């Protein structure tokens, strides 16, 4: 993983410095986005941060909530780390990352507590636990600490969006199979009046309860991984 980080870093700096070569190489920002979202997706490829992923993805709205929180954290931490990288002496870089990341997570937690209180309560311990999501520390260490701020921001955005996308997809699938709805209770996040779910199979739908329980998370995530690998192998 470290290796891929290095190659991306090399590719992006190459492209940024010499315009001639950039015509041959694909757009570095596009590469960064594709990497975070698909080729090097933190959840489905690197298999990082699986604990929160499996624990809270029992509905699309929970997935969306934690996804946004994680994405904001990784984006901000990437920007901060990249901006301050000249002060980051090798001996203390990890403690500094931890200070930055935990600060941002606390900040995100406070904001969610204030502006999306119900979702905050639903996600519970998993908001503070974003700190332990190694995907974030991994991006800080392998990318942000050796790349310019803009690139790091894009990388953070892509990584966060990639993680959030998996959370939302898994949440939506589990919610659909378990409850027969998708994106129910969206108002909890937006703080508005109740919004009807995107999909609603009706009151009489007999959901597979196992889907929204932890064993279902493992099974469905396994199938999701298989699907992802199938798509990737087709591309190859």
């Amino acid at each position, binding site marked *: 993983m470290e290796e891929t980080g290095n190659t991306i870093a090399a590719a992006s700096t190459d492209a940024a410095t010499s315009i001639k070569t950039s015509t041959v190489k694909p757009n570095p920002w596009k590469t960064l986005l594709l990497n975070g979202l698909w080729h090097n997706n933190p959840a489905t490829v690197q298999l990082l941060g699986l604990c929160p992923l499996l624990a809270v993805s029992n509905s699309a709205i929970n997935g969306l909530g934690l996804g946004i929180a994680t994405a904001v954290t990784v984006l901000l931490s990437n920007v901060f780390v990249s901006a301050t990288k000249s002060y980051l*002496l090798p001996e*203390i870089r990890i403690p*500094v990352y931890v200070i930055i990341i935990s*600060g941002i997570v*606390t900040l995100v937690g*406070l904001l969610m507590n204030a502006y999306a209180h119900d979702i905050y*309560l639903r996600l519970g311990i998993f908001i503070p636990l974003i700190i332990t999501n190694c995907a974030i520390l991994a991006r800080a260490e392998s990318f942000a600490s050796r790349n310019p701020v803009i690139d790091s921001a894009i990388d953070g955005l892509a990584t966060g969006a990639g993680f959030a996308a998996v959370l939302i997809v898994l949440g939506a699938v589990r919610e659909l199979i378990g409850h027969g709805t998708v994106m129910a209770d969206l108002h909890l996040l937006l703080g508005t009046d109740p919004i009807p779910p995107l999909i609603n199979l009706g009151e009489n739908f007999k959901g597979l*309860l196992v889907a929204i329980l932890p064993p279902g998370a493992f099974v469905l995530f396994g199938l999701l991984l298989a699907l992802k690998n199938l798509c990737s192998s087709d591309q190859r």
Partner: protein
Amino acid sequence: MHSNKRFIESNKHGVVLACFAVVVATALAFTQHLTKDRIHTNQVVRIQNSLAEVLPDDRYDLPLDKQKIELPDSTSNKNRTIYVISKNTVPVAVIISAVAENGYSGSIEMLVGILADDTVSGVRITKHAETPGLGDAIEAQKSDWIKSFDGKSLAAPTESRWTVKKQNGDFDQFTGATITPRAVIHEVKNTLIFYQSVRQQFYQ
């Protein structure tokens, strides 16, 4: 000389770390200050909402959580939290916290609202670990069963009928689960008995 250099070196690390810590702490303090009030409001609203669920809307003055007292329950040797609800400074109802210890898996926590005429205004489950799909029908979101307590009192139905229909009671059981509803019914009854023993403390 060498060690001296290292001393400076490590001090430098300390200083950089401290700077980061200060910046982050300041940012956090600032955010906390900004969100403090809103978070507090959220919490209050939340408690009020849960309390309001067991009481009809028009019978109380806000805020609900001001009149909070703790009283010992002699039968279970535990303290119960009681909210006394007033309208125009006259007590009109109480909400009593209750815990049913003998659920199917673990204890079931709930709030029981009782009006001044000693009838139940509402019961809501706040925490439980019953079997999903089977025992969790005690949740108001999952079924209307919990609303079958509304309007009941120790007098009606009579004490022997405070149980599930299978045992000739007044309350439904769920298919496949009798322990959970029986535990809830039993605890609501206990709460009512406790209420009788402390009633005169709220309504002089």
